[in-house]
Structure formats: C-alpha cells, structure tokens
C-alpha cells in the first residue's frame, strides 16, 4: 500500500476510534436536553488534572451518605456492581433523583450511571475551570449553585455550566 494512503488511513481510523471512545458524552452535549440540578463542592482541584472542580449532587445521592474524598452518588449496596439508572423528577425548578434501578427505565429522563467502582458515578462529577476562576467558583458553590446538565435519551450526561440558581 502507498505510504501516504496508509498514513492517512491510520490517522482517520484512529480519530474515529477516539470518537467512539467519547461518543456517549458527545451525544449528550449534541442531542441532550437541559436539566438543572443542585450542586455542592467537594474538592476544588484535582492534582492529576489541574483545575477541575469536583462536584457533589445532594439531590442525586442514594441513601443520604456523604462524599468526603471523591464525588459520587452513594452506592446501592446490593452486592451486584454494574449499571445503575437514576430516574429524574422535577421539584421546585430543579431535578432530583427519584428512583435508583439496575434496569434501564422505559422512558426518561434518567441518568445512566455505573457503580463498578466503590460508588455510583454518572460522568458529571467534575467540571473544568481555569485556575484563576477556581476560587470564585468555590465561593459560588458554597453559596449554593446549580449545574446545567445535558442528558440524552440514553441517559448519557454532561456538565455544560455551573451557575447561581
């Protein structure tokens, strides 16, 4: 095979694989609908990723447990780690978790999550901020803020903004 053609095929194919890897989050951002969820801070900076604000969601937490080290949504504690689906309902202008299930709901809105690590995670647990804005954001989160989520019809979710309610 011609070397230029081979290099082109490699580059295009590898970029396609990158797209496959982030397809759920891309789908959420491109095709998802907007939901506002109450949010609280956990840790302002992730040392391995720079100025990522770790987010905690009091209304999406299962069992009322707290998160001290790492953000998450509690755990189901049924001894069967795997996929978790959180059904969302609207209450006073924000969305809260209503039901936690191992089976995908028939209709939305819901979040598609996972608790194969030690707690439930939905891919919305951190949010990037430039270093200079991190302190302002921390103050905003202490005063009470909402996260603007995009959620597609398969439950894939992405954080697109964090702001005052």
């Amino acid at each position, binding site marked *: 095979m011609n*070397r230029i053609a081979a290099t082109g095929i490699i580059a295009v194919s590898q970029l396609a694989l990158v797209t496959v*890897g982030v397809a759920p989050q891309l789908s959420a951002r491109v095709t998802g609908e907007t939901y506002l969820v109450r949010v609280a801070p956990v840790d302002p900076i992730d040392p391995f990723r720079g100025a990522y604000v770790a987010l905690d969601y009091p209304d999406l937490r299962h069992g009322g447990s707290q998160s001290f080290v790492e953000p998450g949504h509690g755990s189901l504690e049924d001894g069967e780690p795997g996929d978790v689906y959180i059904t969302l309902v609207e209450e006073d202008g924000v969305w809260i978790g209503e039901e936690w299930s191992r089976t995908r709901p028939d209709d939305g809105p819901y979040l598609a999550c996972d608790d194969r690590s030690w707690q439930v995670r939905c891919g919305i647990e951190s949010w990037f901020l430039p270093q200079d804005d991190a302190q302002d954001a921390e103050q905003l989160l202490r005063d009470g803020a909402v996260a603007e989520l995009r959620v597609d019809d398969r439950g894939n979710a*992405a954080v697109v903004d964090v702001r005052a309610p």
Partner: protein
Amino acid sequence: MTDTSSPAPSLTTRPVSPHQLAWLRTELADWTAHGIIDDEQAARIATRYRSEHHSRISTGRVLLALGAGFVGVGLIWLVAANLDALSPLTRFAVIAALWLAFLVGGEVLASRKASRPVVGAARLLAAMGVGAVIFQAAQSLQVPAYEPRLLGLWAAGALLHGYLTRSGMPFFVGLLAGVVWWIWQPMWDEPHSLTVVLVIGAGSVLAASLAVLHDEGLATYAWAWRTAAGGMALVAMFAAAIPGIGSDGIVWTTWLVVEMVVAGAAALAAVLTRRDRRALEPLGATAVLVVATTIGLWTTGTDTTSVDAADWGHAAISVAAYVVLAVGLVALGTVRDHQALTWMAMAGLVVFTTFQSFAVFAPIVTGAWLFVVLGTVFLGTGFLFDRARRELAQALDTDSPAGTEGAAR
C-alpha cells in the same frame, strides 16, 4: 530430487546474523571437505545468505526505545497534569498535534530510509500518542477513564498502525494493551475468579492461532503472538490450579461468550488453513483451555486446616497438567527455535511447583520440614523435566526434516 546441475533460478538473499553466517561457512567448508557437496554448490548456498550487520537488540535500539517511551509518557503527563491553564479543548488539540506529528514524522523517516531504530522510536511515540489522544479526549469530556473500553480502542488503533506499516513498535504496544483489555473487559462485567481462567485460556487459543496464521510472511508478529500464547497458557493453568477458584462455577456474560467465539473462530481458521504439524498449536492451546477449566471447576474444599485425598488428587493432577504444558512449550520452543518459550516454561514450572507445594503441604508440614519437602518436590520435578526436555530435543533433532521449521522462523 532437485537437479543441482541445472541453472539456478534467481534467488533473493536472506539476511542472517554475522554469527549464523560464520557458522554456515564453517559447515559448508566441512561438507565440501567430506565430499557431501562440491565447491560450486557450496558457493551457491553461500550466496543465498547475507550478513545483517547489527544485532537484533543493540544498545542504541534499547536507548531509542526507552527514550521514546519516556518522552511519550512525559509529554502526556506534562500536558495532562501541569498545563492547567489550558482548557480541555486546548489540551486535546496539543496532544492530537503531537500524535499527528509523531505519526507523520515516523512515516516520513521511513520513506527516507532513515535508521530503523530511529523510525521505530518515532512510531513508538505515535503508538503511545494515540493512547494519549483517546484518554485526553475522554478526560476532557468526563468519560470515565477507568473503563476497559478506552484501552481496547487504544489497542485497536495501535495494532492497525502496526499492521498497515508492518512495524514492530506500534504492534507491540497494541498487543500489550490488547492482552490487558482482553482480560479486563469480561472481568468488568462479572469479576468472577473462574472468568480469569476462561478469558486467559481463550486468549491463548486466539494468540496461538494468530501465530500460526502469521508464520508465512510476518515472522516477527508470529513470534510475538506465540510468546503471548505461551504466557497466557501458563497463567491460565496456574490460576486454574488455585484451590477453590471455581467454587462459583462459570458465570457467562456477553463479553465472555464473544471472546470464546472469537478464539474458536481463529482456531478453526488456523486448523483449516494449516493442515500440518502447525495445527497442533491452536489445538494444544484449546486443550489447555479445556483442562484448565475442568481443573478450575473441580472444587475439593477450601478448609486449609485439613488435606484429604481429594486435595492431594487435585494437586497431583494440577502438577501433572502443568508439567505436560511446560514440556509441550519447551518442545514448541525447540521446534520453532523460540527460546523465550523455553525460558517461560521453566520459570513457570518453578513458580507453579513452589506455589502448589506451599498450598498443599503448608497446612500439615511447617517450619524447616516444609523447605525439605518443597526442595524434594522441586528436585524431583526438575530432574524429570530436564530429562524430558533433553529427550524431546534429541527426538525432534533426529526426527525433524530440514523443511519442518521452514518459513515459520
């Protein structure tokens, strides 16, 4: 028989190491002196080989590979961790630019006939770069980076690079990432202990089949697949012999079934297309999978304070199966002139014998006597193994016609 007096067709010369060429010339001189071949034939044989004036693993190559590896890891770390002033999109763009520069640069160097180690270093950076691009994209978009899916995509990208450019570095990166993904993905769904035996055993079947299929034309890749197959067979048999590993039985998941089907299809393809002694490799790996699964499912109890006849039987059959596997790998290593297999088999046997001795004897024999018993078991196994290896090597040497190894090497 070939008529050696007829004009020889034009033949391409084969590169061999200076050491091999020196040996061949010595042998040719000896054969000529004894009248086995004449001077003209000796000269014609000698012209078929040329010396490749560098060793397979030179200091320069090692340093280039190490340097490329360090630079790759350092760049990923630098961009991902320290440049926190960059937005996620900018970080992704920087990483993607580096990957593309390494990819294109490696191929430009290759087209200009640059030194092979230098080209290999650039391609290694490109193969690591595509992993960096995947993980940076995932991080920028909050995709969980601890899922095996991303590793599988990296393996696919690196293997594609390796196969399309016929280059070793991206292939080895892809092979390594692919082996880890192959084991991790089914475990991600259902982390059951016997699943480990099944997926590693199936991985051995797949790798052995691919080794046989690569023998003609892609000898380096065949070597790598064969090494992976041998290693996974040893690990699968080792894991299967751990007492109580299969107490939960087999838990079938989608990924486990998919891997079994893929391994089976590869073995079928290898057996159907290589209808000679080479078909024994995928068949042997399949036998390892079946025996390992059977041993794993044979649960004799987990009470470590008492050792009954069933425990002794389990240990004896496990050791026998492991010794048969080790001898088989040594035989394969001898036939294929694949020393890594021989060393892996011997190292595996040492570790396995030690582990089994402690697992079986430790509850009833303690202290100094444990070492005496272990040493005795070790000496006995080593003596039998070494004797079997020598006899096998001798039998294969006398039995093996010149063409047995053929293009496989």
